[in-house]
């Protein structure tokens, strides 16, 4: 299906993503007991293969927690940390230090992803009056390009375009940062757009 994104529609979607990311940042702040800053969302409806403009250097090593979004508007949520930041966050949560991510660290990161996705999707659902359900989280550490394109390919199976939204977050005190990505296919994008127009009286 074809969806066009008007400037007003884009603003509404950015506001929705901002609310979701804000709640996720708040949850991360409570988990780490540190201040978490977030950027304004970057949001585009682009062709699936054009997504590399979002991934930065595709061979940078990233730790990713992936959550499938189910319910009214299915999609994918990705939480992406540079490996160093993933280690710092895992150390902080596990209160110990070593040079590699162990299975327990990965479990801790999956749990971070779980909590962040939960708070994000709940707030997004409340704001849009839609129901979002999250899958169990999946974690992987690999090249950014390999991870993002594999998630995109799932959306690409049924559509040529994808709505991608990116929010950066920073924990200055820990010198750690990361990104939250939302990926929705055009039909989910349309459902979210419809929900935002209902909010404007």
């Amino acid at each position, binding site marked *: 299906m074809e969806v066009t994104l008007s400037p007003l529609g884009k603003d509404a979607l950015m506001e929705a993503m901002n609310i979701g990311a804000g709640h996720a940042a708040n949850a991360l702040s409570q988990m780490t007991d540190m201040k978490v800053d977030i950027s304004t969302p970057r949001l585009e409806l682009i062709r699936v293969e054009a*997504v590399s403009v979002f991934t930065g250097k595709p061979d940078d090593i990233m730790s990713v927690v992936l959550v499938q979004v189910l319910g009214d508007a299915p999609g994918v949520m990705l939480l992406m940390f540079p490996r160093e930041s993933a280690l710092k966050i895992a150390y902080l949560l596990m209160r110990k230090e070593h040079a590699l991510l162990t299975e327990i660290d990965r479990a801790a990161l999956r749990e971070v992803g779980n909590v962040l996705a939960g708070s994000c999707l709940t707030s997004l659902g409340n704001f849009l009056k839609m129901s979002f359900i999250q899958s169990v989280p999946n974690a992987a550490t690999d090249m950014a390009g390999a991870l993002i394109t594999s998630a995109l390919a799932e959306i690409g199976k049924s559509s040529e375009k994808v709505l991608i939204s990116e929010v950066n977050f920073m924990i200055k005190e820990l010198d750690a940062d990361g990104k939250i990505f939302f990926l929705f296919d055009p039909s989910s994008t349309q459902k979210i757009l419809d929900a935002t127009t209902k909010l404007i009286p």
Partner: protein
Amino acid sequence: MGELKIASAPEVLETVGVGSCVVVIIYDPVTRTGGMVHAILPSKPATASDDGGFRYVDTSITALIHDLIGTGARRDRLVAKIAGGAHMFSLFGDAEHGIGAQNIAKARELLHEQGITLTAEETGGSVGRSVRFDLASGICSIETHM
């Protein structure tokens, strides 16, 4: 990603961060000309718009062979190597039926149909790859980051 590149020795073709996508390299060892595609999905659906680019394995391989022959490569000398098709996230079903496996199967099938020998492959698993192909030597090197 979604790209087709053609070059001749001494150039090196390269693509990084290959996950479930598949990279197909086709090479004429005599003219030392070759091409690389980095496709995302197995086949172009009937409903796809015409400008599917090089997103699909099937249309990309056909285009790659066509373009190579256009440069003076001979079909009966062409050989192929493939890489990629990993299963990065277990959430997306089991590995045997994932997009990665479908991409690999489609690439093998198409090359067989076109009568092009597949001389090497480095596919599957759950790890991302970077692929370099040296047109002077015909050597394909794969880098992974564990």
